[in-house]
């Protein structure tokens, strides 16, 4: 059964018509300051090239993996199923994750994510995405860990 949406903000048909083309049906005032950076970000992605970008994330992931495993971290997910840009890793034996995570943030300005749900307090989620997917980021993290652990 088709019914009209009671909520204007959730009415995607109206949003679609607003973005449709030269004849714009008013739905909202576009967030101009959000569209500018979106436009720029998409251009940056296409200038680098999708394939090159994927390869960069994969290379940085391999570097992160080598460096973390060398220090006793273990990956949660089996190799074929890993997402290169978000790495869930168990900490080395005997290390309390929360204090170490706080020190990383307080002393080195590096934020990593803690585990969620059943993994709370047990693992870290380390992101290497977009501009953060560089070997320098990984080196910064592992050097800080060497000082703290």
């Amino acid at each position, binding site marked *: 059964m088709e019914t009209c949406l009671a909520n204007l903000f959730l009415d995607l048909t109206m949003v679609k018509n607003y*973005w449709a*083309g*030269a004849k*714009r049906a008013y739905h909202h*005032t*576009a967030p*101009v*300051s959000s*569209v*500018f*950076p*979106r*436009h*720029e*970000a*998409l*251009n*940056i*992605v*296409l200038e680098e090239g*999708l394939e090159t970008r994927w390869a960069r994330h994969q290379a940085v992931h391999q570097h992160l993996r080598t460096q973390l495993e060398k220090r006793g971290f273990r990956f949660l997910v089996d190799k074929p199923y890993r997402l290169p840009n*978000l790495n869930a890793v168990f900490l080395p034996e005997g290390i309390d994750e929360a204090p170490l995570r706080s020190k990383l943030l307080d002393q080195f300005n*590096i*934020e*990593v*994510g803690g585990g969620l749900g059943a993994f709370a307090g047990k693992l870290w*989620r*380390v*992101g*290497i*995405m*977009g*501009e*953060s*997917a560089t070997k320098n*980021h990984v080196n910064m*993290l592992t050097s800080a860990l060497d000082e703290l652990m």
Partner: protein
Amino acid sequence: MGPEPSDAHPRVLKAMASPLIGHLDPMFVSMMDEVKALFSKPF
């Protein structure tokens, strides 16, 4: 280096700091069309 947000490219930060124009300004309207076209490439 958490699960998000990630660092933003300096060009993106600069775009975020750009002076605003009207949402019906022809320049903005054509940018909306460009954004739609750009989105269709990586996704």
